[in-house]
């Protein structure tokens, strides 16, 4: 047996110690799996996240995926906890390394004294340092042996899942049920192989070898079966709940999984999602659905949004309701297709030609993807305008657990408005909000409306009158100022006054909150607000800013020529407050908690 346990001391590696003693109780564990994307690493992570949801545990995951079709290094990190889990974890407590390159690239992510379990069939050279405990497990050969030799290294991921289950005293029964659910669909052989690999991993005496065992405490919430899913799925569900029945899109990473799900789900609701020939057609079809009287969606990622901009400007001018999802990724251009960035905020707000006011929202975590989608649908209908939702690659793919939304209270049942319009109907009234008469509506006055992208008068007739253009610009602006007036300021988390206010938007919510927790534990007076409504902004931020010495806006975008990120630029422009400063970065990775604290400290001190 090639099993060994070392703790930086070569001597102990010769004699694996067997400990009958105690199991260490863990509140919290960060486990990183590093391998290649075709190894099914996401599958292990998905199972663990799902299990956590079933055990009333908090969970957050983080993964990197290569942008190649198959192959390439990939990781999946799972942060499991019995308390609040706000980030995927800065460093891992446990590392599962499947290959030498996985080991070499990720051993530094393990904290001092952490445990590295490596596949000794592939990993040969170890770095003995920082008190790291190395555990060799011949994962490939043991899995192949268990399955029967014909499966090559296919079962390695499920074998590793068995190891994890045993090591952390996880609920084996719940996990095998999940495995049966997932693999049962793929046929008996597949399920049998998966179970053989899982059992072999579970039976592997790993606990004996390292003399350690862990028990991840289950949460206290009784019977709270949580939903565990990723942000794109939560967004899809929110769109369906919000009343979307029609939409169109074009494939692009990381947006595609939303369109794929809508394509398969919508027929159940009597709706259609069209895969269009390009981004221009996608937004145009979506506007065709909107014009027809439906709540409609299109979406994409940065490059695709650039292509949609002309039609979005039309939507502002013609006053058509449309929900537009932008799953942001690293830019400019094709950029970093599978990395995270928040660099499309200005594009979301100002990306079209002309003065084209529109709404921009951003969800703060996976759960919020659901709620923000419901809200986007409502705003689009109520204000008859495009609503852009800026989610991002990190939210799109990471898994979190959350409670089921109160569906009966939230679901919008769409009804096609075909009420006849009276003689005084105007599609573009200057003294009221536009509510179009969809085609099929009888016009009692006998005059039918044309929805148009030319500047127009109240009846939709083209008008080059300078005064009319100014009035119509005001109409399109003022209705969204009404929206701004209806929004409340975000709640302050942490200290309501003090040294620093951290301002965030989008997927940085968790790490920022955890940073604030840690800084306050250290006796600092720190608060944070997280913006979900980015355009228009709610009114009155100055009353919050006034309570702090520093206002630091943390974003995943470039600091630009003037040292300010995109949201910081907007806040400066609105509040003319030089106290507002930026923490920015563009390394394509989510913020680590430590990173935020260090960068904020550097500004404050």
């Amino acid at each position, binding site marked *: 047996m090639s099993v060994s346990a070392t703790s930086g001391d070569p001597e102990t590696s010769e004699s694996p110690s067997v400990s009958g003693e105690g199991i260490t109780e863990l509140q919290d564990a960060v486990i990183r799996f590093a391998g290649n994307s075709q190894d099914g690493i996401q599958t292990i992570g998905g199972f663990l996240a*799902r299990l956590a*949801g079933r055990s009333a545990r908090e969970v957050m995951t983080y993964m990197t995926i290569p942008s190649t079709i198959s192959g390439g290094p990939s990781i999946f990190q799972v942060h499991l906890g019995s308390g609040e889990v706000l980030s995927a974890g800065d460093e891992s407590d446990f590392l599962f390394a499947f290959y030498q390159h996985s080991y070499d690239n990720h051993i530094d992510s393990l904290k001092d004294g952490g445990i590295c379990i490596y596949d000794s069939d592939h990993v040969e050279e170890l770095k003995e340092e920082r008190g790291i405990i190395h555990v060799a497990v011949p994962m490939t050969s043991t899995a192949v042996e268990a399955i029967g030799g014909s499966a090559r290294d296919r079962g390695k991921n499920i074998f590793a899942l068995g190891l994890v289950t045993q090591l952390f005293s996880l609920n084996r029964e719940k996990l095998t049920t999940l495995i049966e659910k997932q693999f049962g669909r793929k046929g008996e052989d597949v399920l049998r192989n998966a179970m053989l690999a899982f059992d072999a991993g579970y039976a592997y005496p790993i606990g004996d070898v390292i003399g350690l065992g862990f028990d991840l405490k289950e949460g206290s919430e009784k019977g709270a079966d949580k939903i*565990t*899913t990723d942000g794109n*799925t939560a967004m899809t*569900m929110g769109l*369906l*709940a919000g009343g979307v*029945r*029609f939409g*169109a899109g074009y494939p692009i990473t990381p947006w595609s999984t939303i369109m794929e799900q809508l394509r398969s*789900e919508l*027929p*159940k*609701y009597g*709706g*259609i999602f*069209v895969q*269009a*020939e*390009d981004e*221009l*057609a*996608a937004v*145009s*079809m*979506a506007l*065709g*659905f*909107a*014009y*027809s*009287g439906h709540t409609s969606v299109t979406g994409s990622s940065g490059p695709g949004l650039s292509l949609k901009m*002309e*039609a979005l400007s*039309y939507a502002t001018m*013609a006053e058509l309701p449309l929900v537009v999802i932008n799953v942001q990724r690293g830019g400019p251009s094709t950029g970093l297709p599978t990395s995270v960035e928040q660099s499309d905020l200005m594009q979301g707000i100002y990306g079209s030609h002309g003065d084209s006011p529109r709404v921009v929202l951003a969800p703060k975590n996976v759960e919020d993807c659901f709620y923000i989608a419901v809200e986007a649908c409502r705003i689009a209908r109520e204000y008859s305008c495009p609503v852009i939702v800026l989610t991002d690659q990190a939210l799109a793919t990471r898994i979190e657990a959350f409670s*089921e939304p109160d*569906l*009966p209270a939230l*679901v919008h*049942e769409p009804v096609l408005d075909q009420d006849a319009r009276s003689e005084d109907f105007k599609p573009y009234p200057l003294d009221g909000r536009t509510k179009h*008469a*969809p*085609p*099929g*509506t*009888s*016009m009692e006055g*006998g*005059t*039918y*409306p*044309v*929805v*148009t*992208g*030319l500047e127009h008068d109240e009846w939709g*007739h*083209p008008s080059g009158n300078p005064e009319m253009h100014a009035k119509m610009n005001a109409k399109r602006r003022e209705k969204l100022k009404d929206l701004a007036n209806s929004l409340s300021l975000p709640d302050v988390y942490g200290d309501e006054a003090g040294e620093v206010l951290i301002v965030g938007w989008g997927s940085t919510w968790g790490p920022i909150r955890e940073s604030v927790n840690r800084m306050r534990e250290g006796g600092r007076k720190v608060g944070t607000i997280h913006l979900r409504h980015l355009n228009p902004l709610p009114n009155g931020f100055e009353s919050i800013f006034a309570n702090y010495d520093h206002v630091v806006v943390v974003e995943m975008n470039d600091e630009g020529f003037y040292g300010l990120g995109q949201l910081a630029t907007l806040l400066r422009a609105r509040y003319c407050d030089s106290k507002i400063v930026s923490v920015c970065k563009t390394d394509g990775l989510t913020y680590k908690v430590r990173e935020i604290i260090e960068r904020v400290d550097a500004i404050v001190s």
Partner: protein
Amino acid sequence: MSAPAEPKKLTKKDLTADHPTWCPGCGDFAVLAAFFKVLEKLQFPHEKICTIAGIGCSSRFPYFVNGHGVHFIHGRALPLATGVSLSRPDLHVFAFGGDGDGYSIGGNHLDHAARKNVNLTYVVMDNFVYGLTKKQTSPTSPKGFKSKTDPTGAIDQPINPMKKLVYGGASFVARTHATQVKHMMQVFERAILHPGFSVVEVLSECVVFYPGIFDDGNPRKGGEFDIIEEKVGDGSPEDEDRHDVTDGNAAYELASLQYPGKFGVFYQDRRPTKNELEQEWIDATKEKVGDASTTDLLSARFASMK
């Protein structure tokens, strides 16, 4: 009790909106007149008529028809019309445009609306020139045409719209001439009644920037308006030589004839529309999920994530 009121007949007067902004003598006036005549004949409910266009002289069409309408952006009339057609089977959807809008900036959409066989009627008023922007070369301008962007004569080969349409999979393809109103009306009517994607290419003269270009197809100007003789299926020897509109290769050959070529229906075939195919999927899915409410459907899906 009074008898229910007779539904009012839809007349040209009801359908007339703003006076067209086209130049006097523009071929598009005749297209509009023929469209009104056909609608008078077909008597669709007024509120169910929907006209959609992009950008260009001819794309001003929706302003001149008193019906629900959309004046959209350049080149994208067909995708918008696709959205309307797919989600509103109760409507009669018409798209209008010119050669620049349809064959150049919107060329890709034409291929895809055709292959998907979206149920709508598309009328292209082809004048071989960009008129609204004042005489630039268009995708159908013949070689040698002197325009502001080709001052010494166009050098690029023009596209052949009929070939593009037949090859692209449009299920109804016809060609007519704006000076031949009766023929235009016959073709429009057949196009409108065809289930699927029907396209009519109309040679419609720009009297300002390309006067006289279509005279070769106008008998009153000494040209020949050569109408396709379609098979009648009477088994006669003459019928052998007539055109079979369901024969794609024969349609492609007709499209290859020297200008001014032939007029009439090049191709017509009944194949399932995207509208029908999507509805089939919806029906099959609905059968499986029964009459589950939105909340039921969402709850069931959430349950699978627990």
